[in-house]
């Protein structure tokens, strides 16, 4: 049977009512769990797995595909509307999506995001269909040397995301690389900077770093400065306008989708790397970039088309080599294996029909998912018009909940709080969170790829053609970065960049430098292969930080100096300092430590609503009970448990409070 017939047969079976209904059900379930940050589709997918043993496994597989396809779609809601990265692949969307929401253009941002998602997803599927016959040799052409070059290329994107001061941006990236080197060293398995704890032996989680760098500072910032997320009380022209803008920027969609599909197809690159590279590419390639990072619709379109195109790309290693790119994909592959389909070599020869059913189910689910999201975009956007003091306690609870899903331990909550403090001060003193994220995401990959390339090839990997081509791309990317002039505010003698009251920012600089210096000290204990990466990075970072110090000490305004607290005079200054709201965040942690998470959330939300939003006690308690209800429902259906407090240690509590 020729290929086209397989594709048509797959399409036909796709639209059989049975298949379609289960697919749609999967999409619906995926949306419900996808909207909540941190959960992703994994919990739900693993619950479906036992049903594969049932009489008819095909609808279950259709459901699984439906669930997977909307993983990267529904998480755009919290990213754009609240600045909370629902998963690590929606972090870059926040950079422009959330500022748009703050301008009252949430619906427009969502419209653009979902239409870009849909087009990106479809692009990925088309590429997958066309390329699947040739994908194998292409993937086999990418060896350790090429992987190293790709990672280096991704790292050069930091040049576009340093913020106002290139020096500080590079220092932040170095610090991100250092944070990422915590945990087992790729070359030896030695634990680096883990303080002999089990928790840090896996390294710090990207999800927690993302929440701490984006969500926590936003919550604190908005609580201090605003009444609602949106600065206007209108939602603007909305969803359709966003849709139209995506179509107008079709070239960008096409380029970012290609990036997404290509990187997604390479094992070990997908997910978070994809979106940051796409965002970096947007900054590199567009003209008039003054608005980027402040609410430019192209900053939403780029990463969103890439992260859904990634879905299609990721199917290539999954189906053709049996290598899953995420835990959702791993569960899906598990499901395939259980029904006797062996993904991997020869999948195309043995199951070409099924392969196309999967691919086109992905496309259909993608369209269904984005269409639903588009319909919901405007009503859900209304949340940006609600007084923020009413939304904030729920958001804080959601952030902690998302962090807890990482390893389901108390340390997750503590790690979030500690890194959250870092995030808030980085924002205050103008250290770029995206730069830190890029360093963090690439750290382990870079460390491993350098060592592996040298171990396998010696220096001869530089002679490979693929490596040389990418080396040329890296040079181009660096030239673009050097010539890149970020849009920055004009320097004024008494503004945030003024050389006065420097103590707070110098203390912060000192803390960062002390961490880097400590890592130099700790590396001495390690063997050469475990030490060489963090030690070199720490030394370079220290040199950059020293340069920051020198420039900071000069007696004139400069972009290296920045203190967000100096944007106001005494009269305009918000009533509360960031510390005040960090105190509140600590409050939830303490309440959870005493009463357990569920009761702690209840107490926290009630008190917060009463004190900060002036809600009467009964109504505050009612709202808090709503949160408890949602937490209980999730605990029941998704088999989740919540952090225990002292109370649970002392007395046996009934479900869901245990």
């Amino acid at each position, binding site marked *: 049977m020729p290929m086209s017939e397989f594709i048509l047969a797959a399409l036909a079976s796709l639209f059989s009512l049975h298949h379609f209904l289960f697919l749609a059900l999967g999409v619906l379930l995926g949306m419900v769990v996808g909207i909540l940050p941190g959960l992703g589709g*994994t*919990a739900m*997918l*693993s619950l479906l*797995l*036992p049903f594969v*043993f049932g009489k008819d496994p095909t609808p279950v597989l259709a459901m699984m595909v439906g669930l997977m396809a909307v993983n990267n779609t529904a998480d755009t809601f919290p990213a754009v509307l609240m600045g909370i990265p629902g998963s690590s692949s929606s972090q870059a969307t926040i950079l422009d999506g959330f500022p748009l929401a703050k301008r009252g253009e949430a619906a427009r941002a969502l419209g653009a995001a979902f239409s870009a998602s849909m087009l990106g997803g479809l692009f990925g599927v088309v590429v997958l269909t066309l390329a699947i016959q040739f994908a194998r040799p292409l*993937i*086999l*052409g990418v*060896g*350790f040397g090429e992987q190293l070059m790709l990672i280096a290329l991704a790292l050069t994107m930091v040049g576009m995301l340093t913020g106002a001061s290139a020096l500080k941006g590079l220092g932040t990236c170095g610090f991100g690389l250092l944070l990422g080197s915590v945990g*087992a*060293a*790729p*070359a*030896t*398995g*030695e634990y680096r900077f883990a303080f002999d704890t*089990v*928790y840090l*032996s*896996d390294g710090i989680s990207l999800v927690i770093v993302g929440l701490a760098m984006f969500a926590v500072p936003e919550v604190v910032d908005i609580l201090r400065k605003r009444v609602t997320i949106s600065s206007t009380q209108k939602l603007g022209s909305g969803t359709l306008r966003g849709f139209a803008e995506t179509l107008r920027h079709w070239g960008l969609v096409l380029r970012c989708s290609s990036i997404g599909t290509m990187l997604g197809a390479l*094992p*070990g690159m997908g997910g978070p790397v994809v979106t940051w590279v796409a965002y970096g590419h947007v900054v590199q390639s567009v003209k008039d970039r003054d608005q980027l990072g402040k609410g430019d619709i192209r900053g939403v379109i780029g990463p969103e088309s890439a992260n859904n195109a990634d879905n299609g790309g990721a199917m290539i*290693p999954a189906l053709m*080599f*049996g*290598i*899953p790119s995420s*835990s*959702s*994909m*791993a*569960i*899906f*592959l*598990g499901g395939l*294996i*259980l029904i*006797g389909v*062996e*993904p*991997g*070599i*020869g999948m195309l020869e043995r199951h070409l029909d099924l392969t196309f059913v999967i691919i086109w189910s992905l496309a259909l689910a993608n369209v269904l998912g984005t269409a639903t999201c588009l319909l919901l975009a405007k009503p859900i956007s209304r949340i940006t018009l609600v007084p923020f003091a009413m939304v904030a306690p729920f958001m804080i609870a959601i952030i902690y909940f998302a962090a807890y899903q*990482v*390893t*389901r*331990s108390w340390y997750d909550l503590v790690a979030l709080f500690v890194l959250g403090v870092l995030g808030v001060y980085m924002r205050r003193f103008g250290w770029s969170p995206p730069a830190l994220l890029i360093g963090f995401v690439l750290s382990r990959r870079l*460390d*491993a790829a350098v*060592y*592996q390339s040298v*171990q*396998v090839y010696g220096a001869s990997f530089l002679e490979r053609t693929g490596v040389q081509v990418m080396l040329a791309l890296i040079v181009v990317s660096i030239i673009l970065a050097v010539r890149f002039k970020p849009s920055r505010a004009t320097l004024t003698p008494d503004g945030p960049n003024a050389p006065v009251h420097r103590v707070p920012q110098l203390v912060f600089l000192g803390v960062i430098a002390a961490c880097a210096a400590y890592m130099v000290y700790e590396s001495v204990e390690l*063997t050469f*292969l475990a030490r060489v990466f963090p030690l070199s990075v720490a030394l370079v970072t220290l040199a950059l930080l020293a340069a920051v110090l020198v420039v900071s000490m000069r007696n004139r305004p400069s972009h290296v100096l920045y203190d967000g607290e100096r944007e106001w005079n005494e009269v305009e200054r918000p009533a509360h300092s960031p510390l005040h709201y960090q105190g509140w965040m600590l409050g939830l942690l303490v309440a959870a430590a005493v009463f357990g998470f569920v009761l702690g959330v209840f107490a926290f939300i009630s008190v917060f609503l009463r004190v900060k939003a002036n809600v009467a006690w009964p109504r505050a308690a009612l709202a808090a009970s709503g949160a408890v209800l949602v937490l209980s429902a999730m605990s029941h259906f998704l*088999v989740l*448990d919540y952090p225990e407090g002292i109370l649970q240690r002392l007395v046996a509590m009934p479900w869901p409070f245990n």
Partner: protein
Amino acid sequence: MNSNTLLRSGACFGVIAALAGMPAIEAAAQKVDFSGKRIEMLVPFTPGGGSDIYSRALAPFFEKYLPGNPTILVRNVPGGGSIPGANQFNSRAKPDGLHVLVSSSSTVMNFVFQRSKFELDLSKAMPVVLSPQGSVVYIAPGLGVKSIKDIAKLKGQALTFGGNTPTGAEMRVTTAFDLLGLDVKYVWGVERGPVRLAFERGEFNINYDTTPGFLKNASQLVKAGKAVPLFALGVIDETGKVVRDPNFKNLPSFVEAYEAMHGKQPSGPAFEAWKAMLKMGVMANKAILLPAGTPEPIAAAWRTAIQKTLQDPEFDQKAGKVIEGYPQFIGESARPILRDATTLSPEVWDWLRDFLKTKHNVTLK
């Protein structure tokens, strides 16, 4: 009846129970009733991994065969090489049959090599079932070795092997390579899937896979002439001898490979160390454990459930893949394997310490 006869009759009962097998166990199990209960299977790994799939494949059958048809919930506590999950099980699980832990070879290995971080005493837990999983070593055809007969040709050839960590699951093959006297360059920090990819690209030329991984993917490489299976590690039989892997009757075991290479039987601390790795990595690949001190009738109910599951043709047909036809060790028959895998003699310790230090520059604490 004095205590002596009580003891004797107890032992006698044990023997009869063992001989009579299921009926006696069933009689004890009848008193246990889990109806309306929620049973928690704690999987100390991420969803979608081998242990997770194993648990979720077995769960519906436990629901079917445990008395009272309880609901089984699989709960993942991922990370930390399964140490946090095992420790959580230790602090929370009561010996009431409502909590079981799913362990894998990495749980066992971390228990041995990072004992101080473990709160759970793995050797005291009550095994419900122990599921072995074999491993097959294969090489690139370019090395000129067609089968075990010309294994000697490997000597002196530059071999490159990729794996995750020098102290992890790969030790069952790295120790084997060392015993064979192979000249292997190691590249760490690569997961299993990407390792196979790098093997296909020709960057690595010696590799291994567990039985499912081999049957699924590497066997296709063999068919395409891109890989040559060399030997399967083998399994340990009732007498403690290493025999051929039942899934690969045509492939020699590691012991045969050793003989082909050196012309003599392997022995001494090096061989004992490899056998310990075989027990951890192959024999104790997956296990379901009840907390220590679980009352006998409850343990019996679990044993009965797994026995009935293994005999269920529906299981065989639908989920049999998760055990790949290996002999399953039920209840106490699993204990000696777990005990041997977790207690290493001082000589074996010395050998392993020296091996990791000299070959991989890793110092064991």
